[in-house]
């Protein structure tokens, strides 16, 4: 069974600063995908970034980037130039690659507050 652990229940960052959210996972699979989702107070889960395990290059999406360490099973999210709109719950998620795979496994989330 796969597990995803987010060890930081809450974090805060000053506006315009950089923050890193941690995520570790456990799996015996070699091919999989990792995601970071953002859930603002509106409850809408929004995809922030995704990473294919077979790619060594870390994914980036504007101010969001990941540090993917496959051997360590670590997948942290870095938010640069934090904005007030980044205030939200952030969930790390994992899914096995393959046509028959469809269950996302989520961590319990990190509540991020951006302070003006």
């Amino acid at each position: 069974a796969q597990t995803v652990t987010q060890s930081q229940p809450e974090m805060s960052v000053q506006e315009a600063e950089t923050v890193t959210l941690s995520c570790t996972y456990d799996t015996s699979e070699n091919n999989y995908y990792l995601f970071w989702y953002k859930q603002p107070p509106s409850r809408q889960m929004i995809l922030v970034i995704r990473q294919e395990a077979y790619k060594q290059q870390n994914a980036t999406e504007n101010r969001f980037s990941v540090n993917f360490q496959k051997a360590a099973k670590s997948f942290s999210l870095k938010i640069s130039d934090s904005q007030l709109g980044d205030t939200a719950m952030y969930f790390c998620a994992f899914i096995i690659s393959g046509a028959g795979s469809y269950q996302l496994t989520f961590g319990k989330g990190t509540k991020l507050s951006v302070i003006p």
Partner: protein
Amino acid sequence: GAGVSQSPSNKVTEKGKDVELRCDPISGHTALYWYRQSLGQGLEFLIYFQGNSAPDKSGLPSDRFSAERTGGSVSTLTIQRTQQEDSAVYLCASSLGTSGGQETQYFGPGTRLLVL
């Protein structure tokens, strides 16, 4: 195009009553998922539909929970004889349904259910 929509946005019910939650996926998406998000927890997989195939109900917590998907589009999650522990946010997601685990799942805004 429109995203995943869910209704109602909020539902308050009395213990023992039945409730129906509705999900309208993104047009053209054949895969549909239901997840439950309880207070302080990550998301828990409930059920998965792919086209006209039999759904994977392995995540449903009890036989009081059931779901159907009519015409391969709209889905209804029904909870019979609700209990207080059913209080949670119920999230629906959809994806293209052609590539299994590598697909991004797009989420709706959820239905917040409160059982008194």
